[in-house]
């Protein structure tokens, strides 16, 4: 866990939000992540790319300790949020997950009304003191996620009745509603059609700067479009991490080049 493994973050990247140092993840005997160190900053969208099974999702889920839900998963190394070690015993997972929100590959709205979907987080965390306040949170979250216009008249409809793209935006709104600092997205567009994908990408652009955003994608073009920093994973190791445009035009590693030019994956 020496600083030497820390990736270089160039000036102008904005304040550091999360850091990871020498993170290893094991599923039982099997090592899925091997000594990964990455910094997540406030102003940039960070993209994780790499072939299937290389550990992108695994690593992403370390950042809000969602891996805790897999009994055989074991995480070592240091991960901090605003300097606090999130794997420290005194860290409260419930709070952590409220601060580091997550959006999943397949839209997963709860089978409740749109309103209740958004209100779920604020309610369990007690973020609203009154009905009005709650209404307010729901409205602003939906607005941020660019969904308000489409659903304001049918807040009581089931969240599952929306189209795929709308559902995914609902999930983003739901994550926003608990006022997180970081938003993690695991292939948020892979289940969506091109038009819905474009909407989400636009949304990411808008959210950038307000939240630290990390996105996993298997679509390199998407990474190039939405992110400013890209990390390329291969077989559980971080092969290359840097400014997105550099990675795509001038990768330093042979493997990265092979991947980007489609020699495998």
């Amino acid at each position: 866990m020496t600083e030497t493994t820390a990736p270089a973050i160039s000036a102008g990247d904005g304040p550091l939000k999360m850091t990871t140092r020498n993170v290893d993840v094991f599923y039982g005997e099997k090592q899925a992540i091997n000594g990964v160190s990455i910094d997540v900053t406030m102003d940039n969208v960070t993209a994780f790319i790499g072939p299937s099974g290389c550990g992108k999702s695994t690593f992403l889920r370390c950042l809000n300790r969602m891996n805790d839900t897999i009994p055989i998963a074991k995480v070592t190394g240091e991960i901090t949020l605003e300097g606090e070690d999130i794997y420290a015993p005194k860290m409260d997972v419930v709070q952590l997950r409220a601060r580091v929100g997550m959006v999943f590959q397949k839209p997963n709205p709860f089978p409740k009304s749109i309103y209740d979907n958004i209100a779920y987080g604020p309610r369990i965390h007690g973020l609203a003191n009154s009905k009005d306040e709650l209404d307010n949170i729901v409205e602003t979250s939906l607005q941020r996620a660019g969904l308000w216009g489409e659903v304001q008249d049918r807040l009581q409809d089931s969240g599952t009745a929306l189209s795929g793209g709308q559902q995914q935006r609902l999930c983003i709104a739901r994550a926003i509603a608990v006022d997180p600092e970081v938003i993690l997205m695991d292939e948020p567009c892979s289940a969506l059609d091109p038009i819905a994908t474009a909407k989400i990408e636009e949304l990411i652009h808008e959210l950038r700067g307000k939240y630290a955003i990390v996105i996993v994608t298997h679509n390199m073009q998407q990474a190039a479009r939405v992110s400013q920093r890209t990390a390329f994973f291969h077989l559980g190791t971080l092969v290359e991490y840097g400014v997105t445009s550099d990675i795509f035009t001038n990768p330093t590693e042979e493997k990265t080049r092979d991947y980007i030019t489609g020699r495998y994956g």
Partner: protein
Amino acid sequence: MTGSILFLLIIILGGISWFFGRVKARRFVTGSAARGAVHSLPNYHGWYVALWAVGPALLFLMIWNIASPALVTDAALASPAAEQLPQDPFARGSILAEARSIASDQQVKAFNPLSQTMVEPYKTAISYYQTLGAIAALLLVFAGGAYSWLRLKPELRARTKIERITMMALLLASLIATITTIGIFASLIFESARFFSMVSPIDFLFGTEWNPKAVAGPRGETGFGAIPLFWGTVFIGAIIAMIVAIPLGLMSAIYLTQYAPLNFRAWMKPILEVLAGVPTVVYGYFAALTVAPALRDFAVSIGISGASSESALAAGVVMGIMIIPFVSSMADDSIAAVPSAMRDGSLAMGATKSETIKKVLIPAALPGVVGGVLLAVSRAIGETMIVVMAAGLAANMTANPFSSVTTVTTQIVQLLTGDQEFDSPKTLAAFALGLVLFIVTLLLNLIALRVVKKYREAYE
């Protein structure tokens, strides 16, 4: 030649014809050159011939076996020895049967001396008809075998034919279930119809007094009011048993699926399943011998008077225990069927596990759980032995769990094995009760399955 030797012979001949069919088919072109020219493998040609050889012969033997005993008896009766036989049909039949079994070496000593005289005629007749049958069967084997063997040619779609026969066999097997269902319905409906011709269905279904009498009372009351039985059934099976089974089953399922370490789950799940594997007669004995007295003592000690040792509570509680694994496995399935994305979604919002379970998983799994509970209820109200042994016979309409009530199944057993007059509406009432039970459990199941299915589809 006895039946089994003949059967064996036919099977062997079948094997031989299989072989010949194969040999002939092998002489068609084989190997990769055969492709396109020969439709089926030699094996299938073999089977084709074998089926032709064996099938008709066995069918004939089956019919012959049903028909020939009568022929044999006729022949035996034609003999002079038959003249001394008694006229009483039963005694006569019995002597003949005895003679027959001696003649066919199934019995050594005759109980009735007359039988001995009939043995010889029987022996003659039996061997005559057996030989006749055997010759006919063997002829059929050869005819079938030869016919099909001659038909073998490269283009013959032997495989397709064999496949069609196989499929018919499969279809027939699955028809048995339908036939059984029809059988159940028919056997219940006929007797019930007779019952309802004596007792009005209205009185039966809505009467509140169960006190079956052979003769109708002065005001035409028959005592066949089944409401107390329905109430007892519902009270024990759907209320008390479920009060025990639902919380325990549901919470067990939740703990096992959501909290338990893998090891614990691996051990505990089968242990819980054993609860469902214990025979109901054991539960009944346990309820009657251990639980019921304990509950009654308890009731007395807290000052409930009139507590019966054959209490609804004892039967209900034990039944509930029996149903626990049923509820828990249904709940387990339903919770597992909720996509894990749902759970992850909630956890990722910072919800605790119990919040996730209570606010997301259970509501999402609710239709499945409800379906499961309905199935469990239908199982509980159809349960017999526990209530027969522990619930008592008093047709009370009471909500006091410490008193004795009776159920539909208990009464069916009582009515069919009690000391009542035969052919009275009392016997028939058992079938009417069975019909009601059948219909109710059927409806419950249909509803439950529909609910569960609909809900599964919602996630697929």
